[in-house]
């Protein structure tokens, strides 16, 4: 069963007719050719499909496109200004925070969303005092970025990169 929806993707308005079964991730990748968000597991268990959905990081594989009519999607491609990478991307390049690159766009969106969450004062499971404001140390970054698996094992560099980008 098809349904017409409108999505804002990296600033572009896209109107398309989707099968209700199509996830947001598949709509982006297979219908709109936006392949920056990756399919690593298709079940919310790896984080490679993470995008900023209406400003917040979200796994795009576990939400149907049809449920996101009129939503705004920003991918790692949209975070860069042409040749100029976003500061998180710049820091990942400098710190070699990736190898194969397949988890990377999800790591980027997740990190950008995560830094906003910290700015809003959101605690994490490792935040000692829930009443206090959050200080973004390495344990906080590790915990908050644990929804993004990296099989190449670049975590140590990813943490350093995010720490630098946050400064």
């Amino acid at each position: 069963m098809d349904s017409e929806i409108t999505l804002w993707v990296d600033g572009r308005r896209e109107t398309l007719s989707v099968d209700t079964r199509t996830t947001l991730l598949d709509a982006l990748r297979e219908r709109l050719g936006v392949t920056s968000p990756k399919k690593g597991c298709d079940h919310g268990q790896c984080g490679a499909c993470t995008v900023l959905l209406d400003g917040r990081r979200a796994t795009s594989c576990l939400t149907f496109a049809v449920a996101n009519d009129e939503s705004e999607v920003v991918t790692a491609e949209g975070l860069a200004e042409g040749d100029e990478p976003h500061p998180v991307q710049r820091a990942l390049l400098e710190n070699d925070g990736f190898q194969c690159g397949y988890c990377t766009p999800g790591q980027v969106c997740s990190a950008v969303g995560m830094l906003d969450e910290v700015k809003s004062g959101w605690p994490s499971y490792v935040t000692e005092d829930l009443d206090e404001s959050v200080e973004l140390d390495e344990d906080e970054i590790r915990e908050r970025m644990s929804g993004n698996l990296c099989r190449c094992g670049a975590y140590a560099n990813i943490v350093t990169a995010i720490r630098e980008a946050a400064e």
Partner: protein
Amino acid sequence: MTGATRATSPGPERIEGHAKVTGTARYAFEHPVADPLYLHPLRATIARGRVTSVDTTAAERVDGVRLVLTHHNAEALVPIGDPELAVLQSDEIAFRGQLIGAVVAETQESAAHAADLVEIRYERMAHDSDFRDDADIVYTPDADASPMLSPDLEEGDVDAALADAAFTVDATYTTPTEHHNPLEPHAVIAAWDDDGLTLHDSNQGSHLVRDLIAPLFGVDKERVSVISPHVGGAFGSKGMPHGHVALTALAARHTAGRPVKYALSRTQMFELVGYRPPTRQRVRLGADREGRLVATEHDSLEQTSRFKQYAEQSASASREMYTSPNRRVTNRLAALDVPAPTWMRAPGEAGGMYALESAMDELAVSAGIDPVELRLRNEPEVAPVSGLPFSSRNLPACLREGAERFGWHERDPRPGVRREGDWLVGTGVAASSFPSLFFPGSLATIRHESGGKYRVEIGAVDIGTGSRTALTQLAAEALEVPVEAVELWLGSTEQPHASLAGGSAGTASWGSTVVEAVRAFRTEHGHDPVSGAETTAGAGKNPDAGEYAMHSYGAQFAEVRVNADTGEVRVPRMLGVFAAGRIVNPRTARSQFLGGMTMGISMALHEHSVVDERFGHVVNHDLAGYHIAGNADVGSVEVDWIDEHDPHVNPVGVKGIGEIGIVGTAAAIGNAAHHATGVRVRDLPLTPEKFLR
């Protein structure tokens, strides 16, 4: 302490870095193709038997379905000796999850839905998927099962030496089935046209894929193109093409030129693309009063598949590591009705060195000798068994440098006596080793474009290792031009033939090829070549091959914390110091070591594919059930290396760094966990219940 340490001269950033951080680098499934169709496989739900009937009526009625393919309507493939590639050639089922058909449709959604509607009936036969030491299933692999080593080795009299030894260890270690799980699932787009077959494929060597798929379909190699500019991790699972490539190409025979796309689901990856087989290893060590080994015995039993033999040889880790006058090494296989195992990062070494280096720690404890010192006392002058000189061997330097940097000398050797809050704290060490391999047969083309710009082509692949960057550097260095003046092309059969990315041999093999091709280019065209001047050449045979024993070495140090109440294990700190010949690009090389060590942490703490022998399949077949280390599981990981100039290994002096990082990590962590708790766990992974008291 911050994450990974940074080299003073970091080397260029990854050439394809911008494309990767923005997600614009195209992986196999992402290549824009006109009018694609989507494939969803049909897979066996029994472990052994045969398909007796297939009813495709309901599936064919689904809107958008273009083809239901089974062994009834699949064309005959040419037998090329690889059972994995011989898909849909009969009704036989050799393992659960085997490919037995496919639905091809206009959308992924329709294909998946229609596949659910295909009704398959089976004749079940008894199966055996229970890995165990039982004469019914255990055999000795042929000597030619592994091209490099015979399965067994016997020197001296191990039993007599053990009987006389001052200190002995006799311990059995077990390692589980592990799955590679690269983040990019195996994926392929196949399209046939008048010129032949084009595959956009995720692999570790496009030429190898072509060389196997072309004869399978009975076509000339020149009529098959394989394009793989970016590969989202592989770790051995993309080394050989698996059944899905054949299946997709087979389906695309029926679609009148329309491309067929297929990406495996994560769950399918637990059955169709190989795994590290489980092992059961007995290690017996005997030492004299000073801790010098007088006997080394290592017997390994590993799983293989009745469907397709894969002979891993974990016990071979003990052939050349330490000096020992008496030595026995045996490798046995247990054949079961399971999918075929394959190479996984440091195949043999990862599991074998876990056993040997854990046993060395046990020996150190029983002899009351510091484990770093124990290893230094057993350092061979020439390679054991072969008697060859080492091309270079800097394990002692790695151990000493690592011990210094880690603060090893302040260590109290007593186990189970340090506690910080709820956590028991310990440290451990293990040595690493991996052979330095060189794969012959690669070619590179060097072409002077104009104005000092060069185009270098080699059909290598960058699976995340940084080969695109390292080869560009090596080409620029040999050409004596800036890195920016070299444009490197790889990742496709459009480029000259190259060996596969494996065995940590990529930079050694391809780098030597590029350097030798530049020499040939200069010989032919001089230092002021005309525009369009071009030479294709490869590297010759290494005159030192067979004259020296060639390995990388390393020493790994781990701090481990074990929760006194819950048994949870944490690794807040690791240090790896390696000696691996020339390091071409410190920035990307560090990531290779770091990545190997991180996968080693994952192996030590988490990885375990649980087989339910009643069904014959892995039950925790997704990333929520099969844990790989997440960000919070990895603390500070420091990586460094010893400057090492090795004139013998190959023309670029590179020893290989892709796999050694995972070798020894699990032992270092297990040894540290023992130091923390006094509990010796000999069964990976180190899950909390094993430390509960």
